């Protein structure tokens, strides 16, 4: 009985390690197939892309079995990213080799086309008008969009049929994303009055909803 109890954690660890290995293999196969389909974008490559995504789903499932649902989800994203970066490097090497075989050499780095030394090392500050425009954009993107996102998200999330604690936590997680989207819009249309006007409106309506 005692030896069986001692064996249990060891067996569990071994099966977990085996599952992690399987998950990694599926992960490599999944991203590898995506790379293969990218290299051969016509013909067989077309079939490989969905198969690659399928393998990635399977690897997510295997990672979850190996390390639990929470760790598993994180691991599939982390490992997929690293495998993809390694394939980017592999692709770079393959392209360099194929250039060599075609007799085009490895290509020359064109760092030399850059000026490496400045004629002057002074700092060119923007003109007052340009500075004022940037300052205005900063005000719209940071305090205005930030305040509008915080209040507007709080109001929107309150409409969800959840308990208050969950709504507050969801708001905390959602505010940076909403703020990010708002700042993207404000910077994408820097000369338009729509973003600042919309933020002001969202701010006022949300304020009235919360405190009115």
């Amino acid at each position, binding site marked *: 009985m005692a030896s069986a109890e001692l064996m249990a954690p060891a067996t569990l660890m071994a099966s977990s390690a085996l599952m992690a290995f399987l998950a990694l293999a599926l992960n490599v196969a999944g991203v590898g197939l995506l790379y293969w389909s990218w290299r051969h974008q016509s013909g067989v490559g077309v079939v490989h892309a969905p198969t690659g995504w399928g393998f990635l789903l399977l690897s997510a499932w295997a990672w979850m079995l190996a390390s639990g649902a929470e760790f598993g989800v994180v691991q599939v994203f982390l490992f997929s990213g690293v495998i993809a970066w390694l394939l980017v490097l592999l692709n770079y090497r393959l392209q360099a080799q194929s250039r060599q075989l075609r007799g085009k050499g490895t290509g020359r780095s064109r760092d030399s086309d850059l000026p490496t030394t400045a004629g002057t090392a002074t700092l060119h500050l923007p003109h007052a008008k340009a500075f004022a425009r940037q300052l205005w954009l900063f005000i719209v993107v940071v305090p205005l969009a930030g305040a509008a996102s915080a209040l507007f998200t709080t109001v929107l999330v309150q409409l969800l049929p959840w308990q208050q604690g969950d709504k507050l936590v969801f708001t905390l997680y959602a505010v940076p994303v909403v703020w990010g989207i708002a700042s993207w819009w404000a910077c994408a249309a820097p000369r338009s009055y729509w973003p600042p006007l919309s933020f002001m409106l969202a701010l006022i309506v949300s304020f009235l909803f919360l*405190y009115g």
Partner: protein
Amino acid sequence: MKPSLPTSLVKSSVNSHSWLGLLTGALMYLVCVSGTVVVFTDYLERWEQPDVAEFQQMTPALAGQVYSQLHEVVPDIGGDILLMLPQSGAPRASLISAEGAWYLNEDGSRGDDISHDWTTMMADMHVYLHLPSSFGMIVVSILGAMLCGLIISGLFAHPNIIRDAFNLRLRGSRRLQQTDIHNRLSVWGAPFHLVIAVTGAYFGLAVLMNMIFASAFFDGDNERVIGEIFGAPPALQQDVAVMDVEAALNELAVVAPEANPFYVTVEDANTPQQYMIIGAEHEGRLIYAEQYRFDQAGQYLGKAGYTDGALGRQAIFSVFRLHFGHFGGLSVLFLYGVFGLALCVVCVSGINIWLSRRKTRDALNNIWTGLVWGTPAAIAGSALLVLLAGLPAVASLWLVLVACIALAQVLNNDAGGKSMLQLLSGGLVLGLVVLHVLKYQQLALRDAALAVNVCFAASGLILLWLGLRSKRKTNAVAAPANA
């Protein structure tokens, strides 16, 4: 026919991405570099104080004895008292109270004072950029929100996201080279970067958001907001007695045998409301800890509910481990290091693209070179100064960083400044390893200290190699120009 984004959307997203990147680039770089270092904080603390006793376990009886001894020395001790228990990954015990902070020996007696100024300085840089702490935390949180904006605008600014998914053209023009590095690292790392942005923004934003929540829903009462999110503290009225830590730890083994306790805090010590929290890890969970609460006699009062309570409560207590990668062992820690480094490269290459698009070249190029390659030099240099002369870590870091920026400005040469600062960084990192080994001798060559020294030595050699490579390139460029 391939799906494509409207040209106007792509163009405006590129502008948006550039503006947000320029606004945040330098500060974001400092936060990312320090964050990458801070991921390994448990190891760095052990490296900085390698002469502290290490052991894997502390019995409930010994933990109780530690608290009783503190109470004997300072009978009227108040505030919160934190007893960190040793674990397999962090094999040190410590006691932190109003009386001071010190490590514990294996027999529970008082050991060295906790003094890892350099590691704390790196953590502070990541959390609030050495600004006044509340303001700095808000600034860093804003950077988190802006990083969300950068990720979103970056995806819309990238119409060839699939066509270029695995492309890397290092032999093209500098602009193309930097663009490819920037895009490949950021696209494949986007899920990680988004998680880091959201969880990173949380720490400072929470303070502001709690004020909004309090005023909107809880009659201005911040405590009620915290209670709603994290769980309210128990309401006790007891005749004050010495906390029975041993009984509480023994009781925990009965009520939650699967829990792995790693800290005990006494809240509001020596008051009728005093109670104990035992924080315990649960295997496979991202939560920092489940908090088990006990009264002063060690009677179990209930848990906060981070393991099985409301979803929001579980999510909010997962922020720390998710942000710093403190879960899943060394492999995850290593991957967080790699992704952190990738985010640093994304910051740098983004600004490099903008610099290479400019028609002029001025001091901004020098300042940027100085900041980018001066930061590793400043990190290593500050550690050297702390280790060698006990100088203040924060002042040392900024002093070296400003000196590096000044050096780059004096040299006024992109490649030359870069190579010199890379060589300087490499030399300082290797010097740091040598000094650490000379100072701590055998202690520097075992456990965590050895692992950190090996990593530092490898980083130093890589920096030296990069420096020599850059120098060769500089010479190659200069030779035809001179001819």
